[in-house]
């Protein structure tokens, strides 16, 4: 997360030089706070306490005009003797580096002020891209990143599915800076991460989860996919399967901001973790059950797996696409009226259409496809989940109230070397009620891993409320000093 955390009341640029400045590798800049070198890193001194930033996170550190950089080779010593310092892969005079930093600090300070000025929905910013109309309260740089990737996503889907232009202009995408504002303004119920309004006027509403940007991205892709599916035929409502399953397939996409490239159809590792547990229990969802079920949870897990298999690992990609488009447009498909003047298909018709398009004329052929799909799943599961998969699986289990499973997966992720501060934070929140010392230990680890994320300090402070009120208050205050944009209400909602 690129953001500048500083005290806005501080006359930042009154100081002529950048005597005390800390630039982290993730782009965070700390300025206007005293910095103290110490063993293992640098302490940032806030009114409510010192925060240790480990050396491994530091990109540039200047304290009292003195470089943190210590020349180690003759070449470096020679350059240092000439007054040069390393900065972003180049050697340059310290003065030039200071000027660059000062300018960057000023720009980011202005950006923070600007972001705060647009934080309420009444002050939202608006922007249009080729296919979307955005309204947003997220910081500008967050919007820019997502706006760009959503356009690429549209193009990728359009290429595969030959969608039609929308009847009533571009889709409105409403992007909120916090869950609280999302629930308040969008009218979404609690627990909802995002929604796409599938009757006109369409709009897509979601919030930016600052602590889990990957989740935000996947949710965006998932919900946007419902819109894109709609553009196959706006008068048709896709049934839960395969609608949600295809949305999950496209939800597993990733954007490379450097190459400006979108990769779709990645493995949904969180879903895979759920399937792995089902298989371990001896439960396998059959093809027939998936095709004829109505509104099953498994449409997100086994349904995703089927779509992924058909699109990525089988010779049926084209046939599956024909089936999918045919549900809405095919002449042979019998559609029935649904709500809001839309049409849909019943499960039996859906199953018949699937078999027709994939050439499954006999029960044996259905069984053969099922076996091939399950064999692919077995093989995929056998390769084992990555640490990231375990993190996602744990977060999913937690969000669905399966605490024991979440605990196991969190612990396995940590044992696998997870250095994800958010994962530590959520694991701590899970353990807080039953094992406070362990929860505190995890929160302490969270603030070590991400020392300039106010949320984790705030959570640690809140957890100490009963045992050490003064420390609790200090840490909560510190959290606000670290992150002036900290939304405490959002934290309360998170638990």
């Amino acid at each position, binding site marked *: 997360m690129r953001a500048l955390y500083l005290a806005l009341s501080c006359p930042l640029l009154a100081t002529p030089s950048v005597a005390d400045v800390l630039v982290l590798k993730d782009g965070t800049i700390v300025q206007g706070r005293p910095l103290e070198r110490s063993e293992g890193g640098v302490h940032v001194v806030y009114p409510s306490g010192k925060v240790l930033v480990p050396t491994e996170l530091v990109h540039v550190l200047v304290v009292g005009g003195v470089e943190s950089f210590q020349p180690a080779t003759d070449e470096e010593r020679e350059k240092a003797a000439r007054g040069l310092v390393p900065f972003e892969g180049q050697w340059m005079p310290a003065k030039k580096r200071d000027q660059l930093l000062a300018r960057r600090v000023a720009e980011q300070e202005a950006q923070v002020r600007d972001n705060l000025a647009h934080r309420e929905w009444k002050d939202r910013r608006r922007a249009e891209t080729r296919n979307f109309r955005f309204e947003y309260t997220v910081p500008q740089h967050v919007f820019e990143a997502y706006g760009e990737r959503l356009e690429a996503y549209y193009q990728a889907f359009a290429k595969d599915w030959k969608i039609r232009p929308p009847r009533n202009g571009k889709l409105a995408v*409403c992007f909120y800076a916090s869950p609280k504002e999302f629930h*308040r303004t969008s009218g979404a119920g609690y627990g909802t991460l995002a929604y796409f309004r599938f009757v006109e006027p369409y709009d897509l509403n979601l919030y930016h989860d600052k602590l889990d940007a990957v989740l935000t991205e996947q949710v965006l892709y998932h919900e946007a996919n419902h819109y894109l599916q709609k553009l196959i035929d706006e008068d048709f409502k896709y049934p839960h399967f395969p609608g949600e399953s295809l949305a999950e397939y496209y939800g597993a996409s990733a954007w490379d901001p450097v190459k400006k490239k979108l990769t779709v159809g990645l493995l949904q590792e969180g879903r895979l973790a759920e399937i792995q547990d089902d298989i371990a229990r001896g439960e396998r969802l059959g093809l027939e059950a998936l095709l004829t079920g109505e509104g099953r949870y498994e449409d997100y897990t086994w349904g995703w797996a089927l779509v992924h298999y058909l699109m990525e690992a089988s010779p049926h990609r084209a046939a599956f696409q024909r089936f999918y488009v045919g549900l809405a447009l095919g002449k042979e498909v019998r559609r029935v009226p649904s709500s809001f003047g839309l049409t849909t298909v019943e499960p039996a018709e859906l199953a018949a259409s699937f078999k027709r398009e994939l050439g499954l004329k006999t029960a044996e052929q259905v069984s053969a496809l099922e076996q091939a799909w399950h064999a692919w799943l077995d093989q995929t599961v056998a390769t084992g989940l990555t640490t990231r998969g375990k993190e996602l699986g744990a977060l999913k289990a937690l969000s669905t109230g399966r605490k*024991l499973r979440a605990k196991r997966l969190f612990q396995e992720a940590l044992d696998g070397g997870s250095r994800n501060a958010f994962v530590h934070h959520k694991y701590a929140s899970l353990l807080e009620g039953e094992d406070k010392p362990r929860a505190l230990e995890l929160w302490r680890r969270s603030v070590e891993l991400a020392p300039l994320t106010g949320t984790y300090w705030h959570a640690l402070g809140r957890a100490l409320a009963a045992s050490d009120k003064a420390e609790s208050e200090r840490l909560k205050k510190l959290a606000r000093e670290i992150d002036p944009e900290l939304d405490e209400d959002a934290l309360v909602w998170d638990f």
Partner: protein
Amino acid sequence: MGRSIGMRARALALVAALAAGARTEAQAAHEDARYGFKIQPPRGWKPIPRKAEENWLVAKFLCDEKDHWTDKNKGSGWTWEHQPELMVIAFVAAAIEKGKQGEEVEPPEGVDEVRVFTNPYEDYEDYLDRTYSGGGFYVSAREEDTSNDLPVTKLEIKVEKLATTGPKRIVTWVYHAEGVDFAVQAEVLESAFDKRKAALLGALRSFRTIPRTHGPLPTEAGTADGLFISFSSMRKGTPAERKERRQASELALHARAKRSLPPGWQVRDHERFLLLFNTDPGAADKVAAAGAALLAWADESLGFIGKEEYVRRPILRVCATTEEKESLQRGVHASDSFGFEWGLEIVTCKDERGATGWEMDWVNQRLLDLWLRDRDEEIWLGMPGWVGHGLDSYVEGARLSGRKLKFREDEWLSEDFRLAVKQGKHAPLRDLVQMTGGQFLDADNDFSGLWNRMGQADAVVRFLLSPEAGRKQQTKTLLFDYLRNLRDVVLELRDFDEGQEKVAEPKTEEEEEELYRKRAKAWQATEREQEVVKRTFQRTFGGWSDKDWQAFEKAFLDFVD
């Protein structure tokens, strides 16, 4: 010049006279000496009373006209009506602080300390976040100002996304008085805002403080979710202690209800109710008489349930119109929310359709709920779906004819069931009476056949309470036997639950997964519910042979036919 002055003087005198006339005709200002404020609602707007258990709303007015909005989007075309409302909500600083600090209550055995936090609203925006259900909203303008010598925060709120009856505008002025913030909130359809603007702003501007002469500001800051405390305390101790607490609660609520009545309302202390009404007294008396007859029927027919328990006298409000009733029921909730009732209060209105109307349906059902809740809450909550639905439906149809209570049937459901019988789609009675709530609703699947089952459950209960059933040895006391057995099973399981309380928490991932899957299937029965149904069935029908079931089935179908 002199002529001109004279004409102008006469004109001014005429204006003054008209103005004086207008003042005499204008609606009286609403004054509240306890909270210390006064407000002039728009002309013609009706004051709506507060429910006795309402802690935040201090005044409410309902517009005498309706506005309309038509959804022109594809697939809709619906036209919605909406009645503007004006509310005053008080945020007493001391109450908020008290609620945050919590209150110590007597802890259960083995627990050192229990502190109850009543979760008060922090301020007006927090209140909106937690109560507004008319759609997604945002504050579109915020201004600090002064009005009538008070600092005021003026808020304009737009309700746009997922707006249930159309986009709306809320204009709220939060007056910051000593020790209390008063949010004066007006809500109107966006499309009607311009038309109503002058009247609404006039009301908002008219707010001013007056001396508080009725004691200190109230500090009861609980929100709806904090009320379980009083319910739980009324369930503890001996029957005599419970009676004492219930009577104290009843008295307090009755006193509050009387205290907050707006002009035009009357009070009558009825033997079974506190009767409050602003409709004609005859209509209110009829509602009270019918309700009292139903309670007497419950005393007599179901008297074995919680025999020693004191049943509190509900507050029965009879409004003049449906709109007033709905506004009162909603309380602080959005003007297009559904009203809901959870306390000791039943709100109804004069039924324009008389005895054929549906108002008494709701009243009767609520009365049975309140009666059962005070008699034995666990039986009330634990009643299997078929018997619960059947009893509800039975009492819904209760109407007083002369001095006799008659129970009419729900013709729609009865017809559904008769059709189901003709088509052979009805459930065997032996299956029906073994269904859990989830099975009764068939929520795991697609609710198919639900109407048939509801109609069948109603018909079974009606049959079991009929003279026809009363004449047969097999069915004469069957329903009461079933309910008695249910009571005994619930009592047994109460002890069982106390010993097993922590076993419900899954110990392994497999158990957790099982539980998750059960929960994922909405309405799925808990093990406890299954146990209640099973044991009650065994005790009531355990000795029945196939022949007995055939006889029961035949007698029932003969009755239905």
